[in-house]
């Protein structure tokens, strides 16, 4: 047990804080964090409002505890899905594993520590998902102190069982498919399957959505056991029922009984995990970082292609592009989300029954709105550009090797262009995807689409430059695994926030000034304003950039 604590502490320290703040600029991080919280407020408030409405409805028929059941089951399910990714990266693909393997430690000790690390990440997710529900339920039911005590305890215990399940699944998979030599390919396929599952899940949720939006319908479904999603979640995690009973009966002795039963079941799950881990872990993890080689001479044509002369910034961009696509963690986290985004946006269209009507309505609306519809599309492009974290992690991804950039005889602007291009290209490809899909579904004129694309360009560039600016000021270079560089990093989140803010301001301003404006006038205005902003930012960068880069010392 002592070793587990020791290892956990080391792993957490090694991972470092979520973002690195330079000395004396702690306030900067705090300010940004406050900005994030404020930015998320509307979401949290509307969520709480929805929950309290649901509670009122269920309370009328004395079934308010179903709400807790729904919440706990959904949280367990989400944690299970996220857990698969965490377990893969924390247990298997973090570079520290190789340092622990030669130490005289039992597999369960390394696993125990890694489990705790993954659990801590899961708590962060849980805080957002379960926190509001517990608070709303507590306030609405006028619960006593014991309810909140139980809540805190359950909050800590609930994610354990789903995480154990995810671990067992991954450990079994890794044990019997020790495909270490092709680990990158495996990661890729695994990730794509994961994303596919997420997509399927999304689709599934969307099919439920018609009813989800309608509080009354949802209540009926919860009561009649009609809700497929809920059933699935409670069947997967039957123990969550114990947790619900513990909370509902927190005023009585029975509640304590349920609580103990829940904790005991969880304890048993942990024991099972450690027992299985002792037998499965090492066999799956050993040799996982090997990589294959051909050891063959590079022939004339291939040689000519690879060794072709390119301009420095283009060569740099190509290097970034190759690294993005070849590093599974980067590809999955930086590139795919923005590619998948347009699909996510379109899925609701499939889910809605009265699709035909909606499409006609939407098409008509787009034609009728003129300038404003362009502004809304533009805002969407900004958001997609923000979703793509290639630029917001451009400095961070270099990690400890960042210093080498400083020895290159290229100007800051060349370096910036090299780092910027992949992000801009990817954003643009995503937008193109979205446009093609939109053109296919909605009957939008090609001219409108062309204008959209042209106008989006300066906006996309702006968001990507802002992303790099964020990363230049708060790079997180001390990472030990590539996953850490892009996932345990707040910069992409800041970038999304900046994109959202810019998008919001743009729409509001266009609405206020150009609500009657024609398509062309809005297009010209957006293009000029954003090109102007790009130019301004470029001037600032030329002047200040080299100094900022110089300040990064690792």
């Amino acid at each position, binding site marked *: 047990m002592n070793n587990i604590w020791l290892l956990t502490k080391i792993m957490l320290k090694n991972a470092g804080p979520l973002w690195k703040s330079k000395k004396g600029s702690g306030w900067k991080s705090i300010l940004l964090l406050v900005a994030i919280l404020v930015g998320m407020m509307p979401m949290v408030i509307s969520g709480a409002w929805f929950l309290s409405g649901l509670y009122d409805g269920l309370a009328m028929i004395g079934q308010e505890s179903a709400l807790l059941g729904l919440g706990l089951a959904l949280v367990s399910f989400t944690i299970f899905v996220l857990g698969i990714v965490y377990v893969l990266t924390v247990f298997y693909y973090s570079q520290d594993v190789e340092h622990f393997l030669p130490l005289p430690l039992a597999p369960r000790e390394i696993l125990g520590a890694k489990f705790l690390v993954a659990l801590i990440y899961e708590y962060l997710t849980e805080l957002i998902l379960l926190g509001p529900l517990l608070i709303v339920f507590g306030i609405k039911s006028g619960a006593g102190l014991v309810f909140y005590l139980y809540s805190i305890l359950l909050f800590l215990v609930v994610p354990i069982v789903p995480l154990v399940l995810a671990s067992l699944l991954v450990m079994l998979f890794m044990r019997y498919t020790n495909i270490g030599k092709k680990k990158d390919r495996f990661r890729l396929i695994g990730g794509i399957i994961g994303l596919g599952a997420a997509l399927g899940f999304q689709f599934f949720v969307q099919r439920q959505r018609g009813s989800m939006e309608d509080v009354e319908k949802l209540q009926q479904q919860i009561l009649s056991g009609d809700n497929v999603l809920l059933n699935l979640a409670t069947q997967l995690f039957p123990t969550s029922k114990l947790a619900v009973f513990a909370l509902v009966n927190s005023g009585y002795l029975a509640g304590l009984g349920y609580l103990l039963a829940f904790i005991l079941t969880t304890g048993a799950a942990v024991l099972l995990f450690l027992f299985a881990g002792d037998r499965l872990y090492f066999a799956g993890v050993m040799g996982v970082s090997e*990589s*294959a*080689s*051909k*050891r*063959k*001479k*590079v022939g004339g044509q*291939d*040689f000519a292609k*690879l*060794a*072709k*002369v*390119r*301009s*420095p910034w*283009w*060569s*740099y961009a*190509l*290097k970034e592009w*190759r*690294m993005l696509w*070849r*590093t599974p963690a980067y590809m999955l986290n930086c590139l795919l989300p923005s590619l998948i985004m347009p699909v996510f946006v379109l899925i609701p269209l499939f889910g809605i029954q009265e699709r035909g009507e909606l499409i006609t309505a939407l098409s008509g609306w787009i034609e009728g709105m003129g300038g404003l519809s362009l502004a809304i599309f533009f805002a969407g492009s900004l958001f997609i550009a923000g979703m793509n974290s290639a630029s917001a992690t451009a400095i961070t991804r270099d990690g*400890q*090797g960042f*210093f*080498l950039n*400083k*020895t*290159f*005889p*290229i*100007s800051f602007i060349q370096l910036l262009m090299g780092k910027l291009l992949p992000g801009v290209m990817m954003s643009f490809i995503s937008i193109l995807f979205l446009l093609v899909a939109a053109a296919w579904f909605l009957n939008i004129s090609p001219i409108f689409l062309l204008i959209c694309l042209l106008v989006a360009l300066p906006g996309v560039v702006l968001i990507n430059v802002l992303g790099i600016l964020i990363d230049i000021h708060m790079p997180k270079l001390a990472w030990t695994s590539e996953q850490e560089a892009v996932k345990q990093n707040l910069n992409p989140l800041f970038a999304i926030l900046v994109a959202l803010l810019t998008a919001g301001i743009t729409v509001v301003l266009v609405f206020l000034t150009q609500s009657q404006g024609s398509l062309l006038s809005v297009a010209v205005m957006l293009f000029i304003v954003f090109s102007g902003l790009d130019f301004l930012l470029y001037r600032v960068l030329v002047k200040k950039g*080299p100094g900022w880069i*110089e300040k990064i*010392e690792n």
Partner: protein
Amino acid sequence: MIELNGVSKSYNGTYKAVDHLDLTVPKGEIFGFLGPNGAGKTTTIKMITGIIKPDAGQIRINGKEIGVDTIEAKKQFGYVPDSPDLFLRLKGLEYVSFMADIYGVEQEVRNSRIHSLAKRFDMLDALGDTIQSYSHGMRQKIVIMGVLVHHPEVWILDEPLTGLDPKSSYTLKEMMREHADSGRSVFFSTHVLEVAEKLCDRVAIINKGKILFCGTFPQMQEHFQSHESLESLFLELTKHE
């Protein structure tokens, strides 16, 4: 040619990693930079290469000041860092030609240099594989190739011999000699004293950020009036303080 004048660097405002360093490495010379662990070797190299900024003093490479005429100064040198674990996802050839692009090496020159370097380092069969699949020594070799492909005037190496097999180590030393003999300079840090003794025209011994001795090996023996090996002199020099 490298010139350092009164270069200082301190961390956290108090700890002086490098303290008022003066150093000149003329053309045609292999210069060894010796010192125990944590003496300030890597900090000095990082300042010369523009990775970190000195608190005080000037650094010139072939007359170009790194803090002023930055890009021109950087064109003068090639730098081999102490850890070769960089750009692991690139193929060896992609990396070397990336470096050639950054330093603007023309096609014909680049092709022939890559071929001859790969041949000398026994890397012809490895160029098409990703650097991730290389052993430590091979990674070291590909980084060295990435530097030599642009034929720098000044060659700066941080602990270059670590991890190389005897043959590659011999080749590298041979190359350093050729480099210096063709009228250019080589500056490298090491704590392998035998290498320094045999290879270097001059050495500097640094400890706690200060240069304790700078000159040829015979000068050093003369200075201390002893005929002991470099190892004993080194130990003697760095023991006290």
